[in-house]
C-alpha cells in the first residue's frame, strides 16, 4: 500500500511517502489510521487528533468506514486551505 503525507502530516511523520504492508485485518480507513498511529512517535503525534486528518483513497476523499486494500494509494492530509 502506498502512503502519501501532506502539509504538517508530512513534516510530523518525517517523510512525504512510503510503501507499507499493514496486517491483513486492516481493511478500512479507520483501522489503517489506528494501525499507523502505533508505528512510532511521529505517527502518534501526527495522528493524535483525527478530527484534523483527512484521507483520500486512490485520490478520492474517504471516510473512516471506507475500504482499503493492498495496492491502494492512501493519502493523509489536514483540511485543505487552497484558493
Amino acid at each position: 500500500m502506498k502512503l502519501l503525507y501532506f502539509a504538517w502530516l508530512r513534516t510530523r511523520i518525517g517523510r512525504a511517502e512510503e510503501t507499507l504492508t499493514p496486517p491483513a485485518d486492516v481493511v478500512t480507513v479507520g483501522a489503517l489510521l489506528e494501525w499507523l498511529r502505533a508505528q512510532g512517535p511521529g505517527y502518534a503525534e501526527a495522528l493524535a487528533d483525527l478530527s484534523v486528518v483527512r484521507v483520500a483513497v486512490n485520490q478520492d476523499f474517504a471516510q473512516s468506514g471506507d475500504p482499503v486494500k493492498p495496492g491502494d494509494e492512501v493519502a493523509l492530509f489536514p483540511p485543505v486551505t487552497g484558493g
Partner: protein
Amino acid sequence: MIRVQREDFDIGAELDALTVGRTDIGGLANFVGLVRDFVGKDKAIGADVAALTLEHYPGMTEKRLADIEAEANARWPLAASLIIHRYGRMMPGERIVMVACAAAHREDAFAACQFLMDWLKTSAPFWKQEDTPDGPRWVEADTKDDALAARWKK
C-alpha cells in the same frame, strides 16, 4: 478548463481566450486570489506574512478541480469556465488562483464563480504555509469557508 501550475498567469489573456469569437456570452464573472501580507481578518492585529508556499497533491488536485468544474457546468448553463491554481512559493501581491465563468446571463456567471471558489477552498487538495516572524506556519482551515461551501449543498 483547469490548470495547476507553478508559473504566474495573465488574467487579461486568459479571459480573452475564454470569450474570443463568442457572441453568446452576456456576462463574465472572474475571481482572482492574491497573497496578502497579513494573517486573519485585520492587518492591524494580524501577523506579517513574508511569503506563502502552496503544497498540492499532484493527480488528485487536478482530478478534484475537474470534478468541481464539471459540477458547476451541471448546475448552471455556462458558456465557458476556467480554473487556474498555482503551487510553490509566492510573495505578497502575487496571484494564487483565478476562476472565471461565462454565461448568457450574469446571475449564472456570478453564482458559478462563487460556487467554484467556495468548493475549491474546502475540497481541492492545496495547503498553505506562511512565513511569519515566528517562523513557518501551516494555515488552518477556516470554518467560515465550510459555511460558505455549505450554502451550495442541494
